[in-house]
């Protein structure tokens, strides 16, 4: 959208905002004018935050999570189990597992899942690094915690093949009912998997 009635900096910010996912040209204009009218501090704080986002963060050289320090705080933490490794697709998945406070091992972030349609192959993900890390490391178990989608499951199957030689035990997360959910509203596939994975009481 090019509009001569708008000063160049205003138009430029609208253009930048509208490149973000989920933001159309109307939302972009609304955000821009909100910042234009608000006090000076809000826009400046935002610009500092944006700059620091790129300048002060990096990928951890061990697990490839996003970090300010090298290596990241999780990899530095000696109280965590060094023999347990959990593989996730995205940093947000790692965050979700940390919020659950049920896991205290190491992580490896792939930064995506294999999807030939989108042109994403194993070489586009941190898979070679994972294979190297596992074969050189001393792990008892690797938890393949990719998403239960076709792409996530295919990625896990591929990793299983690639890591087979290491002889390390590999596990996947259980598929089943969500806690606090309702049997009646659970879809048939999930219910079937929950039945297959039933546990002794």
């Amino acid at each position, binding site marked *: 959208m090019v509009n001569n009635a708008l000063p160049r900096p205003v138009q430029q910010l609208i253009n930048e905002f509208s490149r973000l996912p989920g933001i159309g040209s109307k939302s972009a204009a609304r955000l821009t004018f909100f910042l234009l009218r608000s006090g000076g501090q809000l826009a400046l704080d935002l610009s500092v935050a944006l700059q620091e986002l790129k300048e002060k963060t990096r990928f951890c050289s061990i697990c490839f999570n996003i970090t300010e320090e090298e290596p990241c705080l999780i990899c530095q933490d000696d109280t965590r189990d060094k023999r347990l490794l959990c593989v996730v697709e995205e940093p947000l998945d790692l965050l979700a597992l940390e919020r659950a406070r049920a896991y205290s091992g190491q992580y490896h972030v792939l930064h995506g899942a294999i*999807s*030939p349609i989108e042109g994403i*192959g194993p070489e586009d993900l941190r898979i070679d690094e994972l294979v190297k890390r596992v074969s050189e490391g001393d792990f008892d178990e690797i938890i393949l915690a990719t998403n239960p989608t076709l792409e996530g499951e*295919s990625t896990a199957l591929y990793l299983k*093949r690639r890591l087979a030689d290491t002889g390390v035990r590999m596990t996947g997360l259980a598929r089943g009912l969500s806690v606090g959910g309702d049997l009646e509203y659970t*879809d048939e*596939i999930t219910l079937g998997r929950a039945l297959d994975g039933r546990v002794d009481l």
Partner: protein
Amino acid sequence: MLESGHSQKGWTSPQESLRYLFMHITHLSLTNFRNYGRLELDLPLGSILLHGENAQGKTNLLEAIYYLATSRSPQADQDSQLINWDAAEAGDSVVVGRLIAQVATQAGSRHIEIRLIQEQGLSLRDGQRSFRRQALVDRRKVRLMDLLGNLRVVMFLPQDMQIVTGSPSERRRYLDITLCQIDPIYCRTLSGYNKTVEQRNALLRQIGEGTSSQDLLPVYSDKLIELGSRIFARRSLFLGELAREAQRVHYEELTKGTESIRLRYLPRLQENGSGSRGSVGPLIALSEWLQENQMDQPAIQAKFSEALAAAQANDIARGATSVGPHRDDWRFWINGRDLSRYGSRGQQRSAILALKMAEINWMNAATGESPILLLDEVLAELDEHRREMLLSYVLKSSQALLTATDPAMFTAGFMKQSTSMTVSNGRVQPDDD
């Protein structure tokens, strides 16, 4: 459960009527759907005759119901064609088309809804307006797939003949839409399978171009084998049941014992040497093998795996997967000959009618409820005997909607048992008795 006044409609025995009385739509509401800007319509039980001039919205009404039941349009390939643009243009830029049916079933009343939502801006790919569909059951958002099964329909269209004469994809579409209405697990398996085929084909092309290595291929092949074998088995079972019933209906009800058809599954469990014109002999043999082994998943997986391996070099060269249920077909034979090539138009019409009647009986048996019948101008082209047969199914169903430009073709007796409504320029008005 019985509504007052229904007994006047000529049901013979209460036992029989009860058996068929369940699923029906009590209210239909459309917003910006085709030529309907806004429609609120109460629907009674039994047969409903929609009459009016051409292009007034008779077919669109049946299409709306079909869409709510199957999430597919019987004709249009794109959802954008379903929207009433004249009405939509006036309002906000994000216009919502809406289809709602209040459905009474054995299990109680259900509110099912599909919303058509226009995304902001134009699609980058083709410059068309892009759409999102949202499905709701009892006002809870569900995946579109989970909508299926809440409302079951069997539709009769003049262009149904294409199921016999058209391409294999027409026949697969019919098969899948019918089976998905009854079997949600099949529907999910199919959806996962189709995605796997797309991923595998993309990978095959990349391997062919040398941009990807072959070590990823077994991952997709294994997934294809796992899901595809279940689809082979389910289709074999379903087509076996449907074939038996269609053959019976055709022989006993439609041709009074003078002609017999045969319906056969042609599973693509093997590469078909000379393309679509190749001999069907080996596929018939596989179909029979599948019938005997349809409960044996490991055996089917082994066979499918073998076929995939045999086709692999060709598949890489072509950049597409050549075996698997996505290439399946099924066909009719009449007196031992292919109906699509050697059958007369009358024979083809009888076969389609037998298929649809069998579908009704099959759904009845599978669910204990009669599906809602949608008949679009199909009676005009039938002879008297076939018309009577079809109307007997209409009168047995809990609810049927028929369209006709000329209501005079119906007998007084039928009219007496039906509710008739006039459709004119996107409005529907019940006729006075």
